């Protein structure tokens, strides 16, 4: 009953199942709360939490609307977002295929080994032949099934005239199996079935771990996604509003944008006045005032009052879609990156294949005859089959990314770790990257009582300023006061009663350009100003990067003055007022000059640059597109995971090279044995497992790489 994937939609009782991502669940208490409290809501049947994916599947009456469920979740203290479909389905499928193959290989390995041990212990004659035949019967289907991921990948590489790690693996496995089968049929003494199956088992373990790491980080990232305008309230001719998904919007529709909502398409304001936060699109942090006739773009967040907008451009014509196209093109170069395992195998495969050929020719010349020469040549291939090589990279990367995950950095895959290790210059966006990207209030003027009232008011509202205020107050240790009759009016503010006094958070009269809110307690009024503070550890992060030889600079779309202020504070160079194209060309220029730039940014305007950079990192608050373009995502208010990523990535590459060193060292010892015909299946099996274990043990040293010398 643990499954989410198999939860059926029970149609006959008019029940339906809706999935929500709930990024806020952190502990067992959250699971218990969600699963116990949700069924108490009218219409909800059961709730089942998947903690790894940070999701909850709610089975409810078909009549119950998703928005009511989101409200119910919010009442329990969890922000939630409906999950449309299963974006992780494909990867989960790949992981499952690998796990099944691993299970089959494990079964085959154990049974074949059982028979092989008896042969090594001295079984002879008819018994040995019987055991060889049994081994063949078990091993052949197991190899055919469990070897598919390698054979398929090797075949693809060869078809495109390239080579990768899977080519020597496949050749080794196929030849070992063929030779063993020949030996079995002719009643020969040596069959290598256990080596072939064991090789597949070890390599599949590495692959399965790798896939597990990717699904895990992608699930975490998936939980962060989906906060942008995915739908809009369209006002029909009769005045009623209905939600329409972004892709079904059409120019000419009239859309109501509530305060705090992100716009899903470009349009012109037809009714109302407000201010919008354009930082996702331009990097400009100060809100922009808009009125009737102003043009606003998809991705902008309406922060003051509800407005009505006549859509002008939708779906693929919006400014966002243009950026998406730029990102697509910029991302092309990254797909051409050759991973270290494949680079190693380009050197490795020709050498071992040449050695095997040489052994064959040498023994022929020495007059050993066809059969023996072939057996020795294949023994060379089996002994050099890159078992440790195949494990060298994935084990190190899996352990390292697990260590980084604990420190709040989600690395998407192994290739990202390899590229992160190579960066030599870092470019930072300002808003949302060096700064928090969320307004924080200046609450120094408030006393304990006022703080409690302000917190009680702020936490009842979903306005971005209220959220920022509530966060600041909670961090300052304020406890909410008890209020009654709380009511919120969009665009006006929120008010309530406190001990018979009217209290409110309102728009101040003299708001001007700066973000501010007024706290009213009876007749007293405090104006609270908001700023977008810098992340607290910018300076140590940058100096840590410098220690690793990575120079940092700012590349921002914001105005010159605020960027300069931040740059001076951190004493790093800067470039301001950069458009998405400017950022992209800055990155391209750096790459053309031979640099390997790291881009750290959050906004949509950073998207093309993130895609074009040699490696890129985005904060967890970044736009969906940016998180998808980035190689890694960091969570929380600290910037330090960025420096940590570089440090751990470099440490990982050191370990990977050591692992390669072990694998090559083992070959240097084992190949002469094979060349002179001393290798038996027993020696091959021992050599293979020992070298694999050494590599795995060495990789495990990375487990603590993200702690300790972190600062």
């Amino acid at each position, binding site marked *: 009953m643990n499954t989410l994937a198999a939860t059926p939609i029970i149609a006959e009782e008019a029940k339906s199942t809706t999935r929500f991502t709930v990024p806020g669940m952190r502990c067992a208490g959250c699971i218990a709360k969600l699963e116990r409290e949700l069924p108490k809501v009218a219409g909800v049947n059961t709730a089942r939490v998947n903690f790894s994916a940070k999701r909850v599947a709610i089975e409810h009456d078909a009549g119950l609307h998703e928005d009511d469920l989101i409200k119910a979740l919010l009442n329990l203290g969890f922000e939630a977002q409906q999950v449309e479909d299963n974006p992780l389905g494909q990867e989960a499928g790949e992981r499952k295929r690998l796990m099944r193959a691993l299970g089959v290989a494990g079964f085959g390995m154990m049974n074949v080994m059982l028979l092989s041990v008896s042969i090594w212990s001295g079984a002879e004659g008819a018994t040995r032949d*019987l055991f060889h035949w049994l081994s063949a019967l078990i091993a052949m289907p197991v190899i055919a099934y469990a070897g598919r991921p390698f054979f398929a990948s090797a075949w693809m590489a060869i078809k495109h005239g390239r080579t990768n790690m899977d080519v020597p693996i496949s050749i080794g496995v196929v030849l070992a199996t063929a030779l063993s089968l020949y030996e079995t049929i002719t009643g020969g003494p040596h069959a290598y079935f256990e080596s072939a199956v064991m090789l597949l088992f070890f390599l599949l373990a590495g692959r399965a771990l790798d896939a597990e790491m990717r699904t895990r980080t992608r699930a975490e990232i998936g939980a962060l996604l989906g906060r942008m305008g995915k739908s809009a309230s369209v006002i029909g001719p009769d005045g009623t509003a209905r939600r329409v998904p972004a892709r079904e919007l059409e120019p000419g529709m009239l859309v109501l944008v509530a305060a705090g909502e992100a716009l899903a398409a470009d349009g012109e304001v037809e009714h109302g006045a407000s201010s919008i936060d354009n930082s996702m699109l331009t990097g400009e942090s100060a809100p922009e005032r808009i009125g009737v006739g102003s043009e606003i773009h998809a991705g902008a967040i309406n922060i003051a009052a509800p407005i009505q907008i006549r859509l002008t451009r939708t779906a693929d014509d919006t400014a966002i879609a243009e950026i998406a196209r730029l990102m697509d093109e910029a991302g092309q170069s990254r797909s051409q990156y050759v991973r270290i395992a494949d680079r190693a195998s380009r050197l490795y495969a020709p050498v071992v294949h040449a050695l095997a050929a040489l052994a064959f020719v040498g023994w022929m010349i020495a007059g050993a005859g066809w059969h023996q020469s072939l057996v020795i040549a294949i023994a060379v291939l089996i002994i050099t089959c890159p078992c440790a090589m195949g494990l060298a990279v994935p084990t190190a990367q899996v352990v390292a990314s697990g260590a980084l995950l604990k420190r709040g950095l989600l690395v998407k895959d192994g290739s990202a770790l390899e590229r992160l290790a190579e960066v030599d210059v870092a470019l930072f966006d300002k808003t949302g990257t060096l700064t928090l990207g969320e307004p924080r209030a200046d609450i120094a003027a408030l006393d304990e009582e006022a703080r409690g009232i302000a917190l009680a008011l702020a936490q009842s509202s979903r306005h971005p300023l209220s959220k920022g205020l509530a966060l600041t107050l909670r961090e300052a240790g304020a406890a909410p006061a008890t209020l009654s009759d709380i009511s919120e009016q969009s665009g006006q503010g929120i008010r309530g009663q406190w001990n018979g006094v009217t209290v409110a958070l309102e728009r101040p009269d003299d708001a001007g350009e700066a973000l501010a809110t007024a706290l009213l307690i009876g007749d007293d009024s405090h104006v609270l100003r908001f700023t977008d503070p810098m992340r607290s550890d910018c300076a140590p992060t940058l100096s840590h990067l410098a220690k690793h030889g990575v120079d940092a600079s700012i590349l921002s779309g914001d105005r010159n003055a605020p960027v300069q202020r931040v740059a001076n504070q951190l004493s790093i160079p800067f470039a301001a007022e950069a458009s998405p194209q400017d950022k992209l060309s800055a990155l391209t220029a750096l790459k053309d000059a031979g640099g390997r730039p790291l881009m750290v940014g959050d906004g949509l305007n950073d998207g093309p640059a993130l895609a074009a950079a040699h490696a890129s990192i985005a904060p967890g608050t970044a736009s969906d597109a940016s998180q998808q373009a980035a190689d890694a995502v960091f969570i929380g208010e600290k910037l330090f995971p960025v420096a940590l990523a570089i440090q751990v990535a470099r440490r990982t590459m050191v370990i990977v090279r050591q692992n390669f060193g072990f694998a090559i060292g083992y070959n240097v010892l084992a190949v002469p044995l094979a060349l002179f015909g001393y290798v038996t299946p027993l020696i091959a099996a021992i050599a293979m497992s020992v070298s694999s274990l050494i590599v795995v043990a060495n990789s495990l040293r990375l487990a603590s790489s993200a702690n300790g010398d972190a600062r």
Partner: protein
Amino acid sequence: MTNLAFLIPIALLMGAAGLAAFFWAMRSGQYEDMDGAAARILIDEEDAEQ
């Protein structure tokens, strides 16, 4: 040696049973939520309705 005629099929059957159990566990979603399973053990069963 005739023992082998029994022992080998038994060994294979036991291995196959283990493999079948693994496949069943995977199909029924036992590995879907590993972190959740670790956390669930900490939930008090005061009003045990799960």
